[in-house]
């Protein structure tokens, strides 16, 4: 049975929201695999190109994994086959905007680059690929050119992939409000018509903005707002229509940026019938926070100082900042710590921290793992994976 058929039977029919989880670290990756096998339901593992990419393109920042080594790592541990390898945001300029000399990659260079990345994804047997050329919009390409790029990439992939490979189209522009239904429908029906005309298989998922937006360590979109915010269309108005529209076109809705949502918002994912939702940075932040918490509890200030220095000077926190921001340095470290877990210096710091606290009786890895696991499990329980409150 194909995954899309299985998904319709297992998830959509039972109103279970499938979790797309970012492999933010080795530990997060291992816990995603373990939990998918424990719950015996698929979790989509959703590496971005910056996290994991083809060896030929330099790999990614998570454990310095290439697509090839990452695939091997996951498949070897995923005994029940419950992890879907799902490329997130694959498109031109998604890995890098610039050449080594700082000039912007041309369109053809960026398309060639993403195709070489996609080729490896397909060879490695990725189950789901999100085609997202929307970075082009920031570099002057029109909506119609971006759609052309999406179709070009979809055709490229489908000519190489097996019939089991599924695709996801559409982009979340990290807006804080849901897409307008009539605009989303115009875009979707136009794309689907063009896909059919080209004789390609229809994508399985459509990414639409549902009112989730991650900044700092909060979800500031309308979905989770306690009050209807001025200027934001309430998610409750748009979401049921967006889902009905997706169902009308035989496509599943994939929400992005579901990090940090409240329990109540997660519960409503099932009630609204959101088919799938992606969560990524939160899991990395949870792991970093636990490192810092342990260091504080065991008075390992040297770790906090040295780790913080690396993370603050690394600047990876910048893209998550609100403007203006009130974030402290500690929070900057929490936000961006995971980008540095594979830095040699940080590995040494963590090894020393682990040794020191173990001497004082703490099982370091177990404690961190259990915290990370709980944060992933919260989503699974509210999304209806089986052992939770509903």
């Amino acid at each position, binding site marked *: 049975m194909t995954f899309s058929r299985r998904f319709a039977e297992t998830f959509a029919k039972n109103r279970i929201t499938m979790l797309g989880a970012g492999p933010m670290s080795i530990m997060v990756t291992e816990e995603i695999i373990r939990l998918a096998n424990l719950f015996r339901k698929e979790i989509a593992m959703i590496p971005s190109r910056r996290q994991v990419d083809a060896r030929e393109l330099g790999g990614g920042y998570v454990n310095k994994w290439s697509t090839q080594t990452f695939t091997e790592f996951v498949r070897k541990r995923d005994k029940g086959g419950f992890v879907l390898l799902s490329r997130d945001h694959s498109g031109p300029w998604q890995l890098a905007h610039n050449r080594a000399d700082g000039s912007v990659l041309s369109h053809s260079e960026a398309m060639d680059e993403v195709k070489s990345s996609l080729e490896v994804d397909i060879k490695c047997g990725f189950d789901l690929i999100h085609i997202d050329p929307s970075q082009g919009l920031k570099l002057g390409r029109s909506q119609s050119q971006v759609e052309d790029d999406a179709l070009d990439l979809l055709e490229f992939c489908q000519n190489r992939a097996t019939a089991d490979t599924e695709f996801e189209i559409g982009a979340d522009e990290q807006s804080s*409000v849901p897409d307008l239904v009539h605009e989303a429908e115009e875009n979707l029906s136009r794309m689907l018509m063009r896909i059919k005309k080209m004789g390609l298989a229809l994508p399985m998922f459509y990414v639409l903005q549902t009112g989730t937006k991650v900044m700092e360590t909060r979800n500031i979109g309308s979905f989770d707002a*306690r009050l209807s915010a*001025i200027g934001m269309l*309430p998610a*409750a108005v748009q979401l049921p229509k967006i889902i009905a529209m997706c169902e009308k076109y035989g496509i599943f809705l994939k929400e992005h940026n579901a990090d940090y949502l409240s329990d109540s918002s997660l519960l*409503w994912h099932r009630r609204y019938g959101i088919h799938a939702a992606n969560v990524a940075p939160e899991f990395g932040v949870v792991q970093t926070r636990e490192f810092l918490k342990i260091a504080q509890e065991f008075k390992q200030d040297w770790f906090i100082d040295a780790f913080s220095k690396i993370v603050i000077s690394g600047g990876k926190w910048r893209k998550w900042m609100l403007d203006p921001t009130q974030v402290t340095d500690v929070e900057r470290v929490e936000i961006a710590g995971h980008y540095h877990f594979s830095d040699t210096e940080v590995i040494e710091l963590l090894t020393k921290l682990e040794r020191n606290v173990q001497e004082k009786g703490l099982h370091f890895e177990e404690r961190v793992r259990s915290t990370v696991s709980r944060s992933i499990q919260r989503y699974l329980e509210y999304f209806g994976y089986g052992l939770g409150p509903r």
Partner: protein
Amino acid sequence: MTTFDTLILNRNLKNVTETLAQTIRKLERADGVFVIDAGSRLDEVSSLTLVRDDTPEATSMGLRIARGFNLGIRSWMQLNREVDWLLLLPNDSELEHESLAELLDRLSNTPQIAAIVPTYPGDPYQRILEKQPISLGWHIPEGPILVSTRYIKERFLDGCDEIFDSSNFRGFLLYLELSLRLYSNDYGIVLTNMLRFRENQSYLLNEHQLIGTEPYSENQRLLLDEGRQWLIDKFGYGDRRALENLVRLTFEEFVRVHGKLYPEAS
């Protein structure tokens, strides 16, 4: 010809209230303009005042829109006015745009519409209303609103002299609940960009002491805390989404039956 009366809710902003009253009076189809006074100091009571609550509670805490508008509507009903609509305005409303005569004419043949909600600058519904300036809606923000006299009279005949829930003091989801009251009675609400008001928040942000209310942030906190308690007491749940769900389903039934009246705002 379709006409309307206006009730403006005042608390300690006499000049602002009377300036707004003058603006409204100049509108085509405007008839009477009256003021509801929510416990203002004597020197801030408008000469246009129809009814005044000067009880210690109102003097110290004000009335807010549910209690204030209800008080005004009760007094206004005793005047037996022959108008079709009643415009309810907080006094910090500022008129931005109006094609009111045309709007009222367009609605004159649809008695099922019992409330008209104007937009405000930056209102997300405006993008939808560019194509269809009058659209059915249900999740509407609290603020200026036109309520049909027909609906008000029907409620009073039904023995209910409260259009809004006075127990919802700070107005948490007040108009969402109004949607429920209307749609479950087979009445509809339209949103429109043919009438647009701006809320001048500077009074709340900068002059809350003069008005006699809490600072803005404190007011927001109380709105959430007391609002959640109101929701629990009234509906048995504290999750606003459950109320949204209920209203949406009731709305969808109205659209199923009367969908041809106006397109839906989505």
